[in-house]
């Protein structure tokens, strides 16, 4: 199976429709494919757009450390949905996702946990400026 990604500048992204029951999240989110991250997390801008308040999430489940700073995180269970290259909808989950209290310019992250759980490899075609996940 192949899922097409896209570049923003030089950074690889991929679009998923995210579904979480509690708190209610149903949204299309572009994820930065971050092989340096061991978790998949939803960034603050996507939470705010869904009207999620951090106060309503209860106690955070620790934090995630970046190069600049630490961000509190909350664990949720959800499902990611994407279109495959042959235009079929594929569902990935249920899987552990985190809501991240990052700075507002930080994107949502697709980490190694997703790649490992579903057996995906990140592939580039530099000449054609293409990026995709393949399993």
């Amino acid at each position, binding site marked *: 199976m192949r899922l*097409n990604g896209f570049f*923003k500048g030089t950074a690889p*992204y991929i*679009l998923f*429709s995210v579904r979480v029951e509690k708190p209610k999240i149903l949204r299309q989110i572009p994820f930065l494919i971050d092989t340096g991250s061991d978790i998949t997390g939803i960034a603050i801008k996507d939470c*705010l757009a869904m009207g999620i308040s951090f106060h309503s999430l209860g106690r955070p489940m620790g934090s995630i450390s970046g190069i600049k700073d630490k961000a509190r995180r909350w664990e949720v269970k959800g499902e990611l949905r994407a279109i495959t290259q042959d235009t079929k*909808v594929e569902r990935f989950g249920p899987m552990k996702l985190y809501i991240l209290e990052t700075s507002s310019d930080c*994107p949502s992250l697709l980490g190694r946990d997703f790649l490992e759980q579903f057996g995906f490899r990140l592939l580039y075609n530099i000449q054609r400026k293409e990026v995709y996940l393949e399993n």
Partner: protein
Amino acid sequence: MFHAHEKDNKRNHLIEKALIPMNKDTNLLKELTAGTKDVEWISKNYPALQKKYPKHFIAVKDQQVIIAHKNLVILINTLKKKFGSASEFLIDFVPDENYTLVV
């Protein structure tokens, strides 16, 4: 006759039941296809967006920037006021050309 009618009802019910997930997938496919067009549009126009909206948050729908603002909360509140919700818009941060993403 009654028996046949009942059979028809049962068959219709089964068809409807089978179609629900199909319709769900059709809707999801439509949404994801529209979303994919928007992200592809952002990707293609990224250098131009960086020039026009450096260090701004943008709300994109149907391959158009609907609103841009430096403050994310103001952008989301404006979307809510104008459209009732911010959930249908792709919200993205556009860095300037010197920005380096460190995660």
